[in-house]
């Protein structure tokens, strides 16, 4: 059943601009550095001994922003598909479990974010090679492209929960926008704040911690959201 539901979610996401957004997310972050390096490449190359790592750092300054904003927009698109004409009632009156419906939506969103992260990897790699920055640090490249994805799973779970159960769609949009703010000033924020996690900055200096925390807390929030959705009367 879950496979069918996921196929149906992909069918419904047609012509909604999801994939354009996924592309823009991955490409946009690298495009900013294209401008940056295009304008002042010489200066930037003087800033560090390891040009690749320095380049990756520049990219990763904007990854959390794109990710958190992307989550807010994608979840809002995703739930608007049902909310627009109250199609929840039509969907849930079919022989499906509400838990599976929720899982299908979450899976599709997570998949789209994963594709965006993959695109980010490819564009980062491509432009890095074009800049001719020397030996390619594959480990770091993958780390800065995919760690933020895992670290942002709690935000995805939370946003999907809020967007599916809110009667007023201004609420998820507000929480989504507020969630973007920490990506500008991550250093000054407490480590427990989930919106800080995609920046991978923490007091232990161990980015991988946020990957494990992201998976753990993401699962937790996912289950809370799913059971709350199932418990409520359908709109």
């Amino acid at each position, binding site marked *: 059943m879950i496979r069918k539901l996921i196929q149906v979610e992909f069918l419904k996401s047609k012509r909604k601009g999801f994939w354009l957004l996924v592309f823009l997310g991955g490409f946009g972050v690298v495009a900013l550095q294209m401008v940056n390096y295009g304008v002042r490449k010489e200066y930037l190359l003087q800033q560090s001994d390891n040009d690749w790592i320095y380049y990756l750092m520049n990219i990763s300054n904007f990854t959390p922003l794109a990710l958190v904003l992307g989550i807010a927009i994608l979840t809002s698109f995703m739930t608007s598909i049902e909310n627009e004409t*109250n199609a929840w009632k*039509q969907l*849930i009156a079919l022989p499906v479990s509400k838990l599976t419906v929720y899982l299908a939506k979450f899976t599709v969103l997570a998949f789209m974010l994963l594709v965006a992260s993959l695109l980010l990897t490819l564009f980062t790699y491509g432009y890095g090679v074009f800049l001719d920055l020397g030996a390619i640090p594959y480990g770091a490249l993958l780390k800065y492209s995919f760690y933020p994805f895992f670290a942002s799973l709690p935000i995805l779970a939370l946003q999907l929960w809020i967007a599916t159960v809110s009667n007023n769609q201004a609420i998820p949009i507000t929480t989504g926008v507020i969630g973007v703010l920490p990506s500008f000033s991550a250093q000054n924020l407490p480590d427990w704040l989930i919106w800080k996690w995609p920046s991978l900055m923490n007091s232990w200096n161990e980015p991988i911690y946020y990957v494990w925390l992201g998976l753990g807390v993401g699962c937790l929030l996912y289950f809370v959201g799913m059971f709350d959705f199932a418990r409520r009367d359908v709109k």
Partner: protein
Amino acid sequence: MKYVVETKNLTKSFGKEQAVQSLDMKIAKGEIYGFLGPNGAGKTTTIRMLLGLMKPTSGSIQVFQQDLKKSRISILSKVGSLVENPSYYPHLTARENLEAWRKILGAPKSRITDVLAIVRLSDVANKKVKGFSLGMKQRLGIAAALLNNPELLILDEPTNGLDPSGIIEIRELIKQLPQSHGMTVLISSHLLSEIDQLATTVGVLTKGKLIFQDSIEAMRKLAKQNISLRVSDQDEAHRLLLAKGIQTDYQKDRLILSEFTDEEIANAIQFLVQKQIAIYRVEEEKRSLEDIFLQMTREDQVG
């Protein structure tokens, strides 16, 4: 009696307000059950509970003699429904909309073409639903309800937004479903005239309470026939009949005789003629079903 739908003491409260109160609904197989009630009576709330979209505050629901709480999914695989305004995905075509639901139902792909033809949407199958008129969207909703060839079809005000010829068309379609496909149909409306020629059983709901549930014939019997008499001397006639033990209802310009057999009426008139009272008019006054329905729902509001 085995019922397709049977609710016991079904109640739904929103805060303090009871939208549905102790409902004992019974729908036998092959019936077309007309679910009537004025706006806000609780029809949609009941239907939402029957589909598991809302949890009852108390009471139980059995569909196909299975408990809805326990066997929701297996029950719903044999139910088709249209609840309130039609739901659809505006950015998809009619065919794509149906495909999204068909996949979940596991119905054969060819069924999409069939149901589109049934509701006469074949010509616009590949147009986006965004541009559809209200009536076309309603038809799409009905098509969706028929996708899995359901054993129980639940339609909440299905003729909403349809033009007169569309209403007749849908009515004809629904009418033949029990014979041709063995379906049982629950159809809600706030107009008795809408389901008058359709329903075999009627349930009347007001303010969350089921105040009538019986066959449409039983409801017709309630349409008691009155005979109205216009005579030359109404006071005298009234007095004479009363003296003979015949109770009449004295109205401004006529006497009303209720619930009399043909013979009793004949006797009363013969008697008046013998007493030299001229008979101008003898008319039968039939209350329409609509009148009865209105009176039922009104009485309940007063009481």
